[in-house]
C-alpha cells in the first residue's frame, strides 16, 4: 500500500519558483490499477518521478508499506518504470534489456535466465529475444519496456503514458493486454495518461489532476456520474452546463417551473447544473423533469446515434444524443423546433463553481 501524504513539489526557487504539485493526498491500494489523469502540464509525470525517486519532494511523505521511502534513491526503491520513450538500451538485445534490472541488482545468475524467459513469454516477445532493441516496431518496443520493468518484480509498476506513441488499433489492443497482465499478476499499477477513454476503460480508480492539485479521486463510474466539479465533468466525457437557482429546496432552471432537487443534492443560491448529453430525453419525460424548448442547430451522424445541438430559448446550447435504432420515432432536421426533457435525477449540481461563475 502506497500512502502519499501532503506531497508537494516546487521547482526552482525565488521568483522563478514553480509549484508543480500542491499537497497531494492519495492512498493507493495493493493490486490496484490506479490512473493519474489530467491535461498536459498538470504534474502527472512529476508525481510519478517523485514516486520513482528521480525528484525529491519539497514537502510531505511517501509511505510504502509503512516505511517512508522519500529519501531512498531510485535504484533501491522496489518500484520500476515503463518510460514514455521506452528508453530501451539500444546496444543490447531484447533479452539483455530484460535481464538488466536483475543483473544490476545482483540476482543469482542461475535465476536470471529462467526469469527472462518467463517474462518474455508473458509479453509474447520470446521469439524476438535476440533482436537488438533498435530494430523493432513501436508496439514491440513497448512490450520489451514492459518486460524489462516487470522482470525485477517491483512492488509497484509506474507507467508514464506508455501507449501514447502507438496507433489507435495497437493502442486498444495494448490497453486490453496491460489490464489483463495487471489482473493476472495482481500487481499495483500507477498509470499516467491524458486520454480519458483510456483511463475509464482500464482503471480501478482515477485521480483527476489539474494545475498540480487533485480534483477528484474515484472509480470511473463515480467520476462520470458524480463529478466533483466542473473541471472533472468537462474533462471526463461530454457535459452540458446550465445555470440555475436553488430556493426553498427547489431548483429552477432558465425560467422554468421549480422542480425538486435531485436525490442527495443540497445547495442554495445560484448553481451550475450539469447533465450528460445521453441523459437528455427527446419529447417529454414522465416523473420529475425540466422541459425545455429549442431549435435544432446542428446534426452530426455518428453511427450508433446522432449528435444533436439544440439552441435553447435563452440562447444557451444543449447537446444530446438521439439513438439511431429502428424504433426511433422522431426524425430531425436542422432549424426545426424540438422539445426535450431533463430528468431531475440526471441533473448534477456543482455548487463549488458558484465562486468561479461569479
Amino acid at each position, binding site marked *: 500500500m502506497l500512502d502519499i501524504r501532503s506531497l508537494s513539489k516546487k521547482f526552482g526557487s525565488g521568483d522563478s519558483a514553480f509549484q508543480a504539485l500542491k499537497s497531494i493526498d492519495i492512498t493507493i491500494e495493493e493490486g490496484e490499477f490506479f490512473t493519474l489523469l489530467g491535461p498536459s502540464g498538470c504534474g502527472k509525470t512529476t508525481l510519478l518521478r517523485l514516486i520513482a525517486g*528521480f525528484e525529491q519532494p519539497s514537502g510531505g511523505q511517501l509511505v510504502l508499506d509503512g516505511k517512508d521511502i522519500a529519501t531512498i534513491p531510485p535504484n533501491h526503491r522496489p518500484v520500476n518504470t515503463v*518510460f514514455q520513450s521506452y528508453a530501451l*538500451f539500444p546496444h543490447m538485445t531484447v533479452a539483455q534489456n530484460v535481464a538488466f534490472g536483475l543483473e*544490476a541488482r545482483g540476482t543469482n545468475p542461475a535465476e536470471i535466465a529462467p526469469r527472462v524467459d518467463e517474462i518474455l513469454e508473458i509479453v509474447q516477445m520470446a521469439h524476438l529475444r535476440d533482436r537488438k532493441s533498435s530494430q523493432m516496431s513501436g508496439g514491440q518496443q513497448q512490450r520489451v519496456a514492459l518486460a524489462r520493468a516487470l522482470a525485477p518484480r517491483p512492488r509497484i509498476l509506474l507507467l508514464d503514458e506508455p501507449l501514447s506513441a502507438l496507433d489507435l488499433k495497437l493502442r486498444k489492443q495494448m490497453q486490453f493486454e496491460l489490464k489483463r497482465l495487471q489482473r493476472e499478476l495482481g500487481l499495483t499499477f500507477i498509470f499516467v495518461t491524458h486520454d480519458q477513454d483510456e483511463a475509464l476503460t482500464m482503471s480501478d480508480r482515477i485521480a483527476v489532476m489539474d494545475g498540480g492539485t487533485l480534483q477528484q479521486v474515484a472509480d470511473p463510474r463515480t467520476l462520470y456520474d458524480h463529478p466533483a466539479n466542473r473541471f472533472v465533468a468537462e474533462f471526463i466525457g461530454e457535459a452540458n452546463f446550465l445555470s440555475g437557482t436553488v430556493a426553498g429546496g427547489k431548483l429552477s432552471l432558465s425560467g422554468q417551473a421549480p422542480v425538486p432537487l435531485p436525490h442527495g443534492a443540497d445547495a442554495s443560491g445560484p448553481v451550475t447544473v450539469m447533465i450528460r448529453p445521453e441523459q437528455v430525453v427527446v419529447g417529454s419525460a414522465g416523473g420529475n423533469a425540466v422541459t425545455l424548448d429549442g431549435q435544432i442547430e446542428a446534426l452530426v451522424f455518428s453511427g450508433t446515434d446522432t449528435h444533436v445541438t439544440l439552441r435553447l430559448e435563452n440562447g444557451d446550447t444543449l447537446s444530446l444524443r438521439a439513438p439511431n435504432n429502428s424504433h426511433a420515432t422522431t426524425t430531425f432536421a436542422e432549424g426545426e423546433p424540438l422539445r426535450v426533457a431533463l430528468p431531475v435525477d440526471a441533473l448534477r449540481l456543482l455548487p463549488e463553481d458558484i465562486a468561479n461563475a461569479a
Partner: protein
Amino acid sequence: MPRNPTAAASESAVARAETRRRWSLALPALTVITLCSILPLGVMVAYSFMEAGQYGNVQWGFSLEGWRAVFLDRDFFDDSYIPATAHLTILARSILLALATTALTFVFGIPTAWFIATRPPATRAYWMFLITVPFWTNLLVRTIAIQEVIRADGTLNRLLLATGLIDEPLQMMFTNGAVLVGMTYVYLPLMVLPVYAAIEKFDFRLAEAAYDLHASRLYCLRRVVLPLMWPGIVAGSILVFIPALGAYVTPRLMGGGRAMMWGNLIDLQFGQGRNWPLGAALSITLTLVVVGAMVWYARRAAKGDATNG
C-alpha cells in the same frame, strides 16, 4: 526461357547508362583521392626504391639502399651490416609517446567533453569555441606558447620559485616529458570533439532508466554510458594517435635533438641527411605501422561485435 533480343539489348543499355552515371557521380571523389592520396603515396614508394642524389633529390635507378638503411646500419669499422637499433629506439619512442599522448588526451579530454556536453545548450557553443580556438592558431605558435610555460625561466618555474616550492628551476625542456606535454596540449581538441559529440548524442533518459532498474552509478557507467560513448572514444583515440605518431614540429621544439621522434627522423633525411630514398622508406614504414594497427583494431572490433551481438 526465350528472350526478346531487342529487349535484352535495351536492358543492358540501361544498365550501362546506370553504370556510367554512377561513375560520373563518383568522379570528383575519385579525383581527389587519386591526386591527394594515391599519387603522393605512389611517388613515395617509387622514391624509396631509387638511389640517393648527391645534393638531396633522387637519381634514376633501382636501389634497395633506402630500405636497407631503415633496418640495417653499416658497421663503422668493418662495413658489415648491423641492425639499425637507433631507428628501432626512435620507432619505439614514437609509438610510446603517441600512446601516452592518446592516454593523456583521454584523461583530460573525457571530463572536458563531459563538462561541455552537460552545460545548458546555449553556453555549449561558447565552451566549444574556447576548445577550438587554439586549433585556428599556427601549430608553431602554439608549441612555442607551451614552451614558454615550461622553460627553465618560464611561467611555471617562476611561479614555483616565487611560491618557494622549489629553489632551483626545474629542467623540463628537451625531455620526453616535455614532448608529451606539448603533444597533449596540441592534440587535446581532437579527442574532445568526437567524445563531446558522443556524449551530446547520449540520451540521458537511458541513464535514468538504468538507475530505475537498480543500477548503481558505476554499474550504469559501465553497462550503459561507456558502451554508447565507445565509438566517440575510439574515433578520438585514432584521431590523436595517428598524427601524434607522425608528429615532428612539437617533438622538435619540445624535445630538441634528444627526444627525437619518427617524424623528425624522416624530416632529417629530406633535409640535412640528403637521403631521400631513406626518408621515403621511413615514411612508408610509418604508414604501414599505422595501417597495420588499424587493421588489427578493426578485426578485433568486428570480432568483439560478433561475440557481443
